[in-house]
């Protein structure tokens, strides 16, 4: 991973996004930059291969899940973001919390596999932009690498992109939160967080497709 620029070389504006005029000025270069991030990320040693099995990890729960899209860097990104997205609905106990996060990331990967090539390409650009040190700092304005980002910092990043007047950042916010929210709240173990009791029991009892389960 390329080393980040020292902080004092950066413009640390905390305004909720640049104004339209400055975006238009940087927009063309910015768009070009987005297109090249994937290449740069590969050249600079960011993880670019799907993570496969995380079986060798000492900090993550054991799982036989094979990642087909998310790289190790992407997984670290979601490990940083999910506490800010699922927020107070994540369990407090460290072990069950890690398991809830890991399971959600597996479901995110599984969902993205079915997105198909076109949207995978878009997400690859977004994730590379967030994982590549230079763009993480300059575009997302997240100063630490993701494993060192606190929940408050992750929340602040999401808020910047949600409230930004730049559509591209709003789009990134929606992409990150939508896949996370769906994978988290859509999972049967978390249905109770929405007050959803699940499919009516009488139907489950009566229908043949549940008989052999």
């Amino acid at each position, binding site marked *: 991973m390329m080393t980040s620029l020292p902080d004092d070389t950066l413009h640390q504006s905390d305004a909720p996004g640049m104004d339209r005029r400055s975006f238009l000025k940087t927009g063309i270069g910015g768009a070009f930059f987005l297109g090249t991030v994937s290449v740069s990320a590969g050249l600079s040693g960011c993880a670019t291969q799907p993570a496969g099995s995380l079986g060798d990890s000492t900090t993550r729960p054991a799982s036989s899940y094979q990642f087909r899209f998310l790289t190790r860097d992407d997984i670290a990104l979601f490990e940083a973001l999910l506490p800010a997205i699922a927020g107070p609905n994540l369990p407090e106990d460290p072990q069950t919390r890690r398991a809830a996060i890991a399971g959600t990331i597996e479901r995110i990967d599984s969902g993205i596999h079915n997105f198909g090539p076109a949207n995978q390409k878009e997400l690859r650009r977004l994730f590379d932009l967030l994982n590549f040190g230079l763009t993480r700092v300059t575009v997302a304005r997240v100063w630490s690498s993701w494993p060192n980002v606190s929940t408050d910092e992750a929340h602040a990043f999401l808020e910047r992109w*949600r409230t930004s007047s730049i559509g591209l950042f*709003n789009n990134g*916010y929606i992409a990150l*939160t939508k896949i*996370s929210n769906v994978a988290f*709240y859509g999972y049967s173990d978390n249905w109770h967080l929405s007050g959803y009791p699940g499919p*009516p029991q009488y*139907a*489950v009892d009566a229908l043949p*497709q549940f008989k052999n389960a």
Partner: protein
Amino acid sequence: MQLKDRIAQGYESGWKVTDGATLTENQTFEADVVIIGTGAGGGTTAEILAQSGLSVILVEEGRLYYQKDFKMDELTAYASLYQEGMSRVTKDGAIAILQGRCVGGSTTVNWTSSFRTPDETLNHWANRFGLDSLRPDAMTPWFDGREQRLNIEPWAVDPNPNNDVLRQGCEKLGYSWKVIPRNVKGCWNLGYCGVGCPTNAKQGSLVTTVPGALENDAHLIYGLRAEKLVANQDRIEHLQATAMSADGVTPSGITVTLKARHFVSAASAIGSPGLLLRSELPDPYDRVGKRSFIHPVNVTVAEMPDKIDPFYGAPQSIYSDHFNFSGGVDGPAGYKLEVPPMHPAMAAGVIPNHGQAQATNMAGLPWTNAVLALIRDGFHPDSPGGTIGLRDDGSPYLDYPVTDYLWDGLRRAFHTMAEVQFAAGAKRVRLMHLDSDWYTNLADCKAAIDDVPMELHRVRLFTAHQMGGCGMGANPEESVVNAFGEHHHISNLSVHDASIFPTSIGANPQLSVYALAARNSSRLANKLKE
């Protein structure tokens, strides 16, 4: 009765069904007619042609899922039954596209609302596009026929509380409302239409016309992507297709050639223009993929004093057309009001938020009502629609600019939806907009609606109805097919799906597709048997 699984039984009785993933070498199939797509258009066409004695091959890119797979679970259903695993969006990412990708197409996952094409729309088509043969009187027998075939009747059961909010709100405000006709038989009123009907009650193509075709010797090949129609002079010689692996996403490397006397594209308003563009068929006036319409949808949610449980019960049973044609057929953008079901994943994906705010939103789901507006696009010069294009890999995308004309309609729809929800007793209302708070009274909410920027991404926009792109018309300079779905320049190619609509419908489009496909297939059967 509805638990009888026709597809499981059909396998036992020897239906010709091939899973593209099982093909191990390149091969050629031949029939009188090859139909691309198995949704509302393809299924209807296949049944009518097969019943007339023609040999038929049905080609479906998605996979075959039926009752045994329909377990009322959102995550598995969205991943397997929807285009791009439910992640399909317009080119700039600003509009989420809900569209089926499986045997039965969108009819396998739609919410069963079955409206006739409004008279205003058919008359507009006649007046504006020279489609006089589609006037309401001429179409009535085709709607009658499809309503009978697919058991379409106004929902006789009380609306669920989510739909009742729309009914009560309209009633209080003096806005007209009606009961939605649904294509169901013996419906259990469970609320899972969107994830594959678990009881076989929904009379979509999967359990009606596709089995009807298979029982008349048609051959269904699923997991097979139509790549290119190969033409010689003014005739298609064959369809080139790619088999998909069992994951439904990855091409297996096997190619299939399909030969026929006639080809019918019924691959949807995104798929059919995409196929025609990839095939580089004659298009002298550059019409393929133009005038794509989507009924842009915006949404408001309300916290109601009583439990709504918006995940249970027939998802759509009440609608209001009060504002649909009130400004004239080609006046300011009109809109139809309906209600979407809200299961946890759907709600979590539609409501844009994170952290504590989202936790609170989701905890309130049992008390949440949602109302949606379908903007009637394509009737006014300032609503010219979007464009279907091709990515580098040949896959189609929809580029849909939202014009000021549409933003005006969307803003008025926000006002109406908030009025309806507060009139029905909402404690507070929120726009599906990145800048919206919860508003506890109508005045504050309306002030906010006038104030929020109507901009892409900030307004959350959706479409479940893709239409146009291969529009019908009498004049080949402004259309792709004639009033019978016959291609203007290729003699043995028809298009039988929502892509042939020259505007949007102004109502959920499935019955419009069924009826036109039935009409055009009956004519095609007669022609091919001559």
